[in-house]
């Protein structure tokens, strides 16, 4: 089996604090790999190193066999890395449709053209229409992002990330702040997308993690203390002590 993402011996320190302590993990084709851990465990730091916003002190990150450890963020995207943000990060002055259009345009190219009309590029807007047709956002297409509900923003962010056709999608707490119904919608959307790309899912919502993940890794104080399928993790005494125990208590 090929690894879409392979992280080996990743180390990141901030002063005296070791945020990522020799982390190694893999995400395989078609897999959803969940990364869980208490607050401050270093999950976001890890995500940001995979994206290229933070450079690790040591270790390697391979995406589909290519070493991307030192590549700038935009080049990693070109190689098939997509992401959603923990705090939704969209183009707030634009509508849902325009956000998707810009995401598709960014992938399609022609971004340096100064004499064309972006609004008339049929290849972009046809694809956006297709995305919207299959999406819960269909009837909110012409609403400005600033006026969307939180759950809708999360859905839009996922749709934009998927429109990039990534090999690997990094999901930084996609359930954060969602109500029960919205969470269910998000889980369904992610299940529907699992055929399109591999996912590394950082999430606190254990119900979602157990519903989605093929494998789970537990990160505590920057180290992976356990890895395995849902049953392994549930049964693991170290994990229960470090993490699950707190929640169930």
């Amino acid at each position, binding site marked *: 089996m090929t690894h879409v993402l392979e992280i080996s011996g990743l180390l990141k320190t901030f002063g005296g604090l070791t945020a990522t302590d020799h982390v190694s993990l893999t995400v395989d084709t078609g897999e959803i790999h969940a990364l869980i851990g208490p607050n401050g465990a270093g999950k976001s730091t890890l995500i940001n190193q995979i*994206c290229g916003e933070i450079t690790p002190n040591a270790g390697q990150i391979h995406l589909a066999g290519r070493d991307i450890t030192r590549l*700038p*963020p*935009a*080049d990693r*995207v*070109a190689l098939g890395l*997509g*992401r959603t*943000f923990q705090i939704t*990060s*969209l*183009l*707030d*002055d*634009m509508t849902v449709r325009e956000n998707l*259009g*810009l*995401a598709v*345009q*960014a*992938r399609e190219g*022609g*971004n*340096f*053209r*100064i*004499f*064309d*009309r*972006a*609004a008339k*590029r049929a290849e972009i807007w046809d694809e956006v229409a297709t995305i919207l047709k299959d999406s819960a956002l269909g009837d909110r297409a012409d609403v400005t992002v600033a006026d969307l509900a939180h759950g809708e923003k999360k859905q839009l962010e996922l749709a*934009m*990330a998927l429109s*990039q056709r990534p090999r690997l999608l990094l999901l930084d707490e996609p359930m954060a702040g969602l109500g029960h119904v919205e969470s269910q919608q998000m889980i369904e959307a992610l299940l529907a997308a699992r055929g399109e790309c591999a996912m590394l899912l950082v999430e606190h919502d254990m119900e979602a993690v157990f519903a989605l993940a093929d494998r789970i890794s537990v990160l505590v104080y920057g180290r992976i203390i356990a890895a395995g399928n849902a049953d392994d993790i549930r049964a693991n005494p170290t994990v229960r002590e470090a993490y699950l125990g707190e929640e169930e208590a």
Partner: protein
Amino acid sequence: MKREHIILAAVFVVLALVPFAAELTGQASWTRLVGQALIYGMAAASLNFILGYGGMVSFGHAAFFGIGGYVVGIMYHHFDAGTAFLGLIPGTDQMLITLPAAILIAGLAAALVGAMSLRTGGVQFIMITLAFAQMFFFLFISLKTYGGEDGIMVRRTNSLPGLNMRDKATLYWVVLGLAAAYYLFLRRLVQSSFGQIIAGIRQNERRMAAMGISTYRYKLYAFVLSGMGAGLAGALMVNFLRFASPDMMHWSRSGELMIMVILGGVGTLAGPFIGAGVLFTLETTLARYTEHWMLPVGIILLLVVMTSKGGLMALLRRLGGKG
């Protein structure tokens, strides 16, 4: 859309009639004033592309305005003296050469400034663009060959084949034609694929990077395009006033261009032109009554910015919406 076209055409016709109106009323200075306002409008509009659409607050935009102007001045100087720039490039008074040269050189200067300053953001970016502009300002002051602090006189406006450019009205119409062309260019630019990317970067640079956009390259390209526009405006101004001086790139000029953009409406196409027209008119009118004209101008600017939320364009839109 239809309505926009009608308004644009009407404004263009009114502006084209200015020289006739000036002659009829005996107010010969009108042509000169409106022409200058149009040129400042172009410079402000070029700044607005990076400031309003791109979110890059450049405080050194007058540098490119001045450099464009000096290209015309220096080329005329060598043409007049029969010498060559650096002993290599002969001078010329042909507008078909001087304007493209001014645009090109201003673009190169913008590439240099942008390449370094765009690695920063926020306040640092403002300060670095300002610092570069001051460097250019003092560079041109130190060039004694080209008049130093006094600048260069351009005794005759550049020639265009088939036109009598010594005629004030003809020169005005050339300026108006180029201002209109520049307006249409910017209108196209903000609707283009590139314009969309730039608007995206203004709203959320991190998101654009996550979509695979190397934002630095796009911002640099926008910065260069913007500098080229300012260079064109500067070249026209030197033709119009027949004078190039370091004052064109003084930091207070950069500030004025910013005021024009903010007064007229940040991130709007017509705003910078309106802002330039209003500010320039206020300055010249008030300066007749008092040397402390900055005070009333400041108060008016304060009132517009605090009440309109989006400059004069926002006010006009509200009036247009109601009427």
